[in-house]
């Protein structure tokens, strides 16, 4: 028996909007500790990892670990039927083949039940080691989204370079080139507008803008975004979800030199 009651139902709607274009089908894993998902996009270049901790729910009951395969497009369609202020409850029976989303209006005068069929998904899990990153950049999420969008009008890829005094985004294409530098900036009055750089080592990596632009669909979830980078490792783009969890996107870099050894 599974019953998860999320007062801020709009969060779930936003999460789905953020990932449904990247991943079509995914397994949601429920355990005592929380509601999570890990899935790769079809080309195996990007990965999304979602975690909603159990303590973030008003009511959280999960008798045994449950993995529910869902088609995210369909799930998103159903969640679209919930009002922005609605309380969303996710319900499922152990071993059942469907999941129910219940939407309650804040005034409790309207209750809707949406039942969705589950599917069997043969997903591949990646073990992601906890690593210490060479550089971590925290910046306003809207700013990051803006830069990615702007640069993609010029080129397909972006080079993100972190140095002591700032983070530089550069691209070039047929029509020309562009550089955007964001300097470290500690604003006293508004933490959300800060750009903070923690760096042990300068890092410079190249990524496909197409994916970054897809990640920035999560901008509505949080005012800030964190980019964690290490040499020759996928970047982690993380959005915190209001006190209850996070959504992390991993993106494999472009490898510049020809001397790769692995098949």
């Amino acid at each position, binding site marked *: 028996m599974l019953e998860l009651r999320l007062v801020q139902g709009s969060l779930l709607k936003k999460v789905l909007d953020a990932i449904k274009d990247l991943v079509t089908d995914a*397994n949601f894993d429920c355990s005592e500790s929380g509601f999570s998902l890990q899935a*790769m996009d*079809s*080309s*195996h*270049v*990007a*990965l999304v990892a979602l975690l909603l901790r159990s303590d973030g729910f008003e009511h959280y009951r999960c008798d045994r670990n449950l*993995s529910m395969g869902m088609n995210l497009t369909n799930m998103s369609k159903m969640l679209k039927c919930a009002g922005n202020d609605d309380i969303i409850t996710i319900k499922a029976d152990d071993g059942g083949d469907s999941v129910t989303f219940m939407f309650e209006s804040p005034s409790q005068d309207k209750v809707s039940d949406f039942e969705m069929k589950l599917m069997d998904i*043969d*997903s*591949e*899990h*990646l*073990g*992601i*080691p906890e690593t210490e990153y060479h550089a971590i950049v925290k910046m306003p999420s809207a700013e990051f989204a803006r830069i990615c969008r702007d640069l993609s009008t010029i080129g*397909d*890829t972006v080079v993100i370079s972190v140095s002591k005094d700032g983070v530089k985004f550069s691209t070039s294409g047929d029509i020309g080139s562009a550089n955007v530098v964001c300097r470290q900036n500690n604003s006293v009055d508004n933490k959300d507008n800060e750009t903070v750089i923690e760096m042990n080592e300068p890092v410079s990596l190249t990524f*496909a803008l197409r994916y970054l632009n897809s990640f920035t669909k999560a901008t509505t979830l949080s005012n800030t975004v964190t980019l964690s980078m290490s040499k020759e*490792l*996928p970047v982690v783009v993380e959005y915190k979800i209001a006190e209850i969890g996070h959504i992390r996107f*991993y993106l*494999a*870099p*472009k*490898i*510049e030199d*020809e001397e790769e050894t*692995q*098949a």
Partner: protein
Amino acid sequence: MGIKGLTKLLADNAPSCMKETKFEGYFGRKIAIDASMSIYQFLIVVGRTGSDMLTNEAGDVTSHLQGMFTRTIRILEAGIKPVYVFDGKPPDLKKEELAKRYARRDDAAQGLVEAVEAGDQVDIEKFSKRTVKVTKQHNEDCRKLLRLMGVPVVEAPSEAEAECAALCKADKVFAVASEDMDSLTFGSPVFLRHLMEPVARKLPVMEFSTAKVLEGLELTMDQFIDMCILCGCDYCDSIKGIGPQSALKLIRQHGSLEQILENLNKSKYQIPENWNYKEARRLFKEPLVTPAEEMPELKWVAPDEEGLKKFLVDENGFNLERISKGIEKIKSAKNKSSQGRLESFFQLSAAPKRKEPDTKETPAQKKAKGKAAEKAKGKPGAKPGPKAGGRTKMK
């Protein structure tokens, strides 16, 4: 060509071993391709109207070059890194099969002459397709073209299929692309079908996994090879009246070809004379291939623009503009193949649901052992068994 009826057998009995995938999903992957088979296909389909084919000024056929050039560009554009493997000397056992093919080609040539006389367009096309033969010159042309395009070429000591599988086993390439189901029998871990199909046919790529084939059929690799021989392969005759379904059933029941021969109802099934299944099995199990440590490093380099123009435009009468465009495409494709894949950074851990492959004895083996013990005494050695065995030893 290939193993008779294997695709259908797998679809029915081990559906999880194949999955439809997208052509674009293989970017950044190194893939070995059987060159001879591709060239043969190009000669059949590319630029053909009736019995006329694309030719240069001297009248030499250039369909293979056209096909190789455009198809390879398409692969490169998807970010895939192709390796073309050329056939070496065919194994002795295949000569019989090849002789049959020559005979068929001669028949077709005969038919073509008749069709031309009768002026029947449909027949002319049909027969002229059947007369297609890949010559040394065709192979040589394609090798030259590929080198100019910056694509690596591997010379197989014997069968290209086997060499492709060996490359894959040695982790030099991610998969083998072929239309020939032999690749599975050679034990290529990952095998792709329809990768080389023209875009127009819109066939999805089929990815086969040998491990899952064995899991699905509940056979060991040795048993799978025996089953393929029973189904009918290029190396020896098969037993009349035994199709793929019964081949699978027999192998599951008896465990090996030796056991099957011993138990088979000889009055019902005619076993070919001098049936050389042991040698065929050896060719599948230990084919002549380049040892893993001697395999050359595969390198993809920038195309030789001047060389390509000289070879294709000046020597073979291709359109300069089209070739220039093609070269541009090759250059820009370089960019795409540089995209990393997550699997190369993070370890793939099997999803919690998936079962561990069964390492225990399969039911077939158990049964085979039991039956063997039972029948070993009563029956005298089956006729073709020892004969075939004897011949193998002599070699």
